[in-house]
């Protein structure tokens, strides 16, 4: 079974174009590190067009976190902005980029969204 992290990046790469990033350009690298090992994921955005690779290259924004925290975020169980405020994730470079990419993460799996009254009565 593929983990949520890999699935998140593969989905993003497959999508090719993301309307939410239409006004965004730049490169962002996630460095997921644990002990001596660091996994890199590089996202290149060019006005909505996205490419994902595992290159360790210079980027406009670099985000550090643990693989475990990222896995939770990719599954919607942790929130990226709260993780940033808490220091469980740190950023250098252009903060706008991380805020834009954070919006692509899923919401919590148990969040149901607004429910219409009649739907509730039926359920």
């Amino acid at each position, binding site marked *: 079974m593929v983990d949520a992290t890999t699935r998140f990046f593969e989905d993003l790469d497959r999508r090719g174009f993301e309307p939410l990033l239409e006004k965004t350009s730049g490169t962002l690298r996630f460095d997921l590190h644990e002990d001596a090992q660091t996994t890199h994921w590089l996202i290149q955005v060019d006005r909505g067009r996205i490419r994902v690779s595992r290159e360790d290259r210079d980027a406009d924004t670099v985000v550090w976190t643990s693989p475990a925290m990222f896995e939770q975020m990719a599954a919607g169980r942790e929130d990226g902005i709260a993780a940033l405020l808490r220091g469980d994730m740190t950023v250098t470079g*252009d903060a706008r980029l991380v805020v834009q990419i954070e919006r692509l993460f899923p919401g919590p799996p148990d969040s149901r*969204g607004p429910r219409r009254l009649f739907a509730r009565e039926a359920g």
Partner: protein
Amino acid sequence: MVQSNTIRILDGNTFVVSEDTGDIEATPSEPTGLFSIDTRFLSRWVLTINGERLNALSYDDLQYYEARFFLVPGLATHYIDAKLSIIRERAVTASFRETITILNHDERAVDLEIRMDAGSDFADLFQVKDEIVNKKGEHYTEVEADRLRLGYRRGNFRRETTIASSETARFDQRGFAYTVHLEPNEEWSTDIDVQTAAIGPGGRDLRLGLQAHARERLALQHDLEEWIAAAPKVNSECEHLGRTYQRSLVDLAALRFSPLTMPGQTVPAAGLPWFMTLFGRDSLLTCLQVLPFAPEMSRTTLRVLASVQGTRFDDFREEDPGRILHEIRYGETAAFEEQPHSPYYGSVDATPLFVVLLDEYERWSGDGALVKELEQECRAALKWIDDYADLVGNGYIWYERRNTDTGLENQCWKDSWDSISYRDGQLPGFPRATCEVQGYAYDAKVRAARLAREFWDDPHYADRLEREAAELKERFNRDFWVADGEYYALALDADGRQADVLSSNIGHLLWSGIVEEPRAAKIAQHLVGPRLFSGWGVRTLAEGEVRYNPIGYHNGTIWPFDNSFIAWGLRRYGFAEEAAAIADGIIAAASYFDGRLPEAFGGYRRELTKFPVEYPTACSPQAWSTGTPMLLLRTMLGIEPHEGHLAVEPRLPVGMGRIEVLDIPGRWGRVDAFARGRMEMHRLAE
């Protein structure tokens, strides 16, 4: 509660609230301190000389970011014959800086032990506001030869205050001290620098790379001068109107802040001290108020709000795709998800108001490029209205919080728990649909139809929006009209029953244009009638309602911002005299607050109290109170963009004299507007 003798200086969301001596002695409930990113970084900052506290002779708050205190030793219990003067000068920029100067006026030399007690509780602003004290992390203090570090740690969350001094000081666990010998007429001085830090693992500051825009004191001064120079000039025979405008202009400059998520872009923060952060509703309404005077603010606010528009369902944050945020916070409770503000989306009016502001901004500025740039976000906002806000499925915007623990019960501007009631005083169940929000939705659709036709090249979408708006207006006028009172109900409950009290919300309906023409006169009559109008302004809830209380937060007080939109609405429907009466009352009230309108003041009759009674815990300055005089100027002068130029149709209250507003910016370049007051107020209806 904020004491009236506290001195506040600020830059963005870094601010210092102190006593009039410059000292800070915070208790859990006393909101003095040095605050930044929603955290208190100093809760104790007390200066003594030879063990004695100092007494304030006077202080100047020179600019919003700097203040000066003149002090002498001893307490003011009897006549002071001081041989020493102490001057504390402080400024908030990227850090907090204080210069202490001591002058010896004695003919003899003196030996002084000068001490500053320093400490921090690192309280989250929410803990200060709601008086919560138990901290889950640990405090630490590190004494170094040349600095004192105060810190707080909880997991990877770390906030630190570092204090350094230009003169050599002895640092200890509880502050720092100097031993000074002063000859007659000699003076001594030291610069103290207090840095705040939000440190992540590896010692990186959370704001690293974001601080590039933090400004130095001189840059701040230059920026303020530029801000004032760029704004229209107001010359007025009515002296306090001119003063009120100046005060508002400077306060508005002070309230500009740059969110962590959008460095370099400034938006209006909601208010000092509790709300130095981005609020969707407050920022949007403030931008609407100040458009003729500071149009730039609308552009950045729209961009910032668009950049964090909701994209997914999150029940804790009450986020939905297309929803515009309510509030963002950076403190410990947001970080650990004890509060949902990272960001929180629980408001139903910010989303339609986002569309309203974009259209209004284009009408003034001619900035069609921004309308094209934000097309996607506008469509998402309109889709949110139809798909996610209609909880009952009958074509209205409803709210019922999904975060039942820390979410807001009332997601409209009157957000206190008891603000929505039936005539018998009972509170309706949820979901609720308040009337003014339906007006905003109507207005958003009408305005978006224009944008779709003129900028998005989508006439079909425009037709659809106009059709939906017309249906909404018809439906609304059927369901919300209170037949026996001849006004609109404050809200509907899920069964369609009316919360049938008379409230100020009906004024917003005029502003939105959802009121059917034949009913407008009746609404105008209510607004300036004795149950709603106190003589100073329109009460949030009418006298005679069960829950009416002249100092009830949303049940009887008068909110200046509310009144400014009501005045705008009255003018929209041609009730210029009624609009002028409201403008007259609010501007008169401002003169009692030195030109700085509070968030709210009491709903007592004007003849009864003779002066407006400030609501006890009101925020000040507060953005939408600060914007109020500007919107009132707009309504009194009747300035309105019209086919590419600025139309002027003044209707001033009697006694207002002549008003000139020079250099109003817009698609016409810059133009002037002139008006003379000559209306007779006694012709007003009872």
